[in-house]
């Protein structure tokens, strides 16, 4: 029986295993050094915040693996010998494979800052980071201040985590406004306000110079490059992005770039070795996506796709329309299609913000054809199916606005803003678009 070995038990690896099991009775082994069982990395923050216990982050009960005949192995793979089709573990153990799937995810970036390996300096990525944080920042007596370096999604999550335990946080962001490489100006400003209104000390446009030692190997303070200001702190969170976790493959002969290089079938340069998820790097970016996408659902989609290929139905990885979501403290964010931080030449924008400054939508469409290109939605939930269908059918911005009631996914009885939104659009564009009533038949047609 063919032995499929997957290194990494994150969403990509586990999805692949589940789908291979659905399609075949091949022998499957998942290897992880981090934890015995699959857990949702995105939920680690909620464990620290006390919303959940660690066991709640595990989507499958223990019996699931046995019942589905998926072998779990705890161990750290140190090397891949592809000519012998063998894995060598750090303890010297050897495991043979027929097909190997590399799904080792990411690791937090460290940019060689002085002091970056001191006690109390940590990323927020692995389960071990969570344990480390619990040790160094259990409360605001032991951790009197924390400094977070890097203004991305993990940075703001870490800020929220520490804030939940009333630990004062200084948040250093390199950009002039939060996440403005991704978010347009208005949205980025909204999140700046949200961060500040929660009492987090947001510092924009600053870099970390060094982390200082307290003399016994533990962090004492940090220094800001631009101002030379020294900020005393007990914990430093390094959240300046992630990069593929592939060090162990350096001498394996597998072609590497920033990640493991793969083609559209997720194959590496070596036969029977594949890579998926955060650690995979497409030779050429797919449409407007990045070559490496460290996103939960792309990992899952690669897993869904690769399982087909492994099970003799060779399938190209073809992610559909871009979408994503996040939550910035109390503001939920969803995006469908593309809304670039800076409009491209052919693009027109429509922006609406609710008077409380905590909800907005930002629509991107083609100036000339009026084709809808994408939407950012803050504080209002939107229906994925609606926008997926609109994007596939290349429908116009008018169509979207007309059917905004179908798109809304907020809980029942929530205040609806569609009329207000349309009014603003009509005024700005001298148009007369009328809102159509929510229609189930419209919504369900989308499915087909």
């Amino acid at each position, binding site marked *: 029986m063919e032995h499929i070995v997957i290194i990494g038990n994150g969403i990509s690896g586990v999805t692949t295993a589940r789908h291979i099991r659905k399609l075949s009775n091949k022998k499957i082994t998942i290897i992880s050094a981090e934890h015995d069982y699959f857990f949702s990395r995105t939920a680690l923050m909620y464990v620290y915040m*006390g919303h959940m216990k660690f066991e709640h982050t595990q989507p499958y009960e223990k019996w699931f693996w046995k019942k589905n005949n998926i072998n779990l192995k705890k161990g750290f793979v140190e090397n891949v010998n592809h000519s012998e089709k063998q894995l060598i573990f750090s303890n010297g153990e050897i495991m043979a494979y027929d097909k190997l799937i590399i799904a080792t995810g990411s690791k937090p970036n460290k940019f060689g800052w002085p002091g970056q390996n001191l006690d109390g300096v940590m990323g927020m990525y692995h389960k071990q980071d969570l344990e480390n944080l619990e040790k160094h920042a259990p409360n605001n007596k032991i951790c009197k201040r924390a400094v977070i370096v890097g203004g991305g999604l993990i940075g703001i999550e870490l800020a929220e985590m520490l804030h939940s335990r009333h630990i004062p946080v200084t948040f250093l962001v390199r950009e002039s406004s939060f996440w403005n490489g991704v978010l347009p100006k208005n949205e980025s400003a909204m999140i700046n306000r949200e961060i500040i209104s929660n009492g987090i000390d947001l510092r924009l446009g600053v870099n970390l110079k060094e982390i200082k030692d307290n003399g016994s190997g533990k962090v004492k303070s940090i220094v800001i490059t631009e101002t030379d200001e020294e900020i005393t702190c007990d914990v430093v969170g390094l959240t300046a992005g992630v990069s593929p976790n592939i060090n162990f493959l350096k001498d394996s002969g597998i072609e590497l770039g920033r990640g493991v290089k793969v083609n559209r079938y997720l194959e590496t340069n070596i036969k029977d070795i594949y890579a998926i998820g955060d650690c995979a790097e497409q030779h050429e970016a797919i449409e407007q996506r990045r070559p490496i996408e460290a996103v939960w659902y792309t990992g899952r989609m690669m897993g869904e796709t690769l399982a087909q290929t492994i099970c003799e139905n060779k399938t190209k990885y073809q992610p559909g329309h871009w979408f994503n979501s996040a*939550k910035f403290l*109390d503001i939920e964010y969803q995006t469908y299609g593309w809304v670039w931080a800076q409009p491209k030449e052919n693009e027109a924008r429509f922006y609406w913000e609710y008077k409380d400054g905590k909800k907005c939508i930002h629509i991107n469409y083609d100036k000339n054809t009026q084709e809808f290109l994408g939407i950012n939605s803050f504080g209002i939930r939107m229906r994925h199916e609606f926008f997926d269908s609109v994007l596939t059918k290349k429908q116009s911005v008018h169509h979207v606005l007309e059917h905004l009631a179908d798109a809304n996914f907020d809980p029942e009885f929530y205040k609806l803003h569609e009329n207000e939104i349309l009014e603003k659009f009509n005024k700005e564009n001298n148009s007369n678009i009328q809102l159509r009533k929510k229609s189930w038949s419209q919504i369900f047609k989308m499915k087909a």
Partner: protein
Amino acid sequence: MKGLQKIGLGLFILSLAIFISLLFIGNYKVTPSNFEQFSSSKGIKSELFIKKMNEKVVGVEYSNSFSFSSEIISAMESSNEIYKKNKEWDKVIWDKPHSFSYQLAKKSGIGLVNENKSLFWWLTFGLGIIGSLFFIIPNVILLGPKGIKNNGIFLNSATNRGWIGWLVFIFLVSFYLLLYFRPDYIVNWTYIVDPISKNLSGNLASQWFLYGFLYCTVMTVMAVRMYIKYRHNKYQILRTTSVLFFQIVFAFLIPEILVRFEKPWYDFKNAFPLDYDFFFSWNLDQLIASGGFGLFVLIWGIVLTLVIVPIMVYFFGKRWYCSWVCGCGGLAETLGDPYRQLSDKSMNAWRLERWLVHGVLVFAIVMTGFTLYAYFSSNESVLAIKTQTIQDIYGFLIGSIFAGVIGTGFYPIFGNRVWCRFGCPLAAYMGIVQRFKSRFRITTNGGQCISCGNCSTYCEQGIDVRAYAQKGENIVRASCVGCGICSAVCPRGVLKLENGPENGRINPTDILLGNNVDLMSLIKDK
């Protein structure tokens, strides 16, 4: 703000301490005239009992309810024993001993509590309400800006089965055991609500009036907590207002007012088979005896269960009842909300749930069938089983132990919907309708789920919501009571409670929206 909370907590604990201490204060003395009146109104023919009482109890002052009732019960039981031996059945007192002693105790209390009912109401209920509000209201500020604030729930011993949780558990279980099985020990508690009962129904308070009043009070105070915690979420606010309204008006005020007008006590929203004694002969007789009104109630009760309940479940899901109307649900959603995360999400718990809840439904239906057969055929037993025996077993096991002691007493241990999930026969009935013929579902928003597990953690019914959401599947489950919290706690906007066309309600998907369109259709075609 924190200071206010501390004061509030102090006041609340003080009120609770006074409430508990009431069990141990006050004296009991049966006066000859009271006893005379009592025995004649009960039609007691037991000369032995009357003699024993007159010799030992009447005129004697007892310093607590425990010795008082043990004296009465021993007099009753020893006399009964002799009459039973002599087969003088008409002289046997058939009442349940503690209910019997309760009735006498209610008339016999003297001293502090009985003489200062209003004062003690303020020291217990009043202080408790004020203390709780002092504790709850500062959260408007302390919780921070509106939004989901579940910080520290699993770090707190009250909400994570720590020592506070266990203390609350002990208190609640003891309370229910006393309420159901030792009403004679809690006579003092009933005194403090006598004035309110007098005003409503014209009668002195029974232990059930006390329970009803306490229930409404607790729900109201804890509803304030819900309003603050979920002030960003209109679904939660409306739902909380609705359960509160139905509890206070339908389950409490209307029935008491009916009694005032000498009509049978009836809760118009309490549908059979949750209202398991609706078809018991005593109830049918009572309804028939009260003329047009009784007949109306009889027809309403039948129509409610057979027509209104399933039609409403078809259009809105069982949530219209369980989390918008029902009293049990109302308590679970207010007092129980801090404990919702303690429900068991394992597959084994789901298995147990299906056996138990449908088992209770079958039990309730069989019992009612037997009862009705016996009623119309004027037999006391069916298939050589006394219907009375079945009713007693149901009342004890399901009505008291399951619904009360376990259902509410175990909130801090097993979560707030133990009864609704594992025991309620009405929930089982509506669940079957909801699963197979309803427009209600929780829609999963395409491929947005990140498997974080907030939804499953906070599902009071122990549904593993994430298991569906991460597969892009809508959640269509018999047990879902539509509380809407999964949708509220989702950080990615994945879940929405909706009533929509039946077609497409259940959407099995292996590949989620967002991936290769061909792959999705390939899998779907299989």
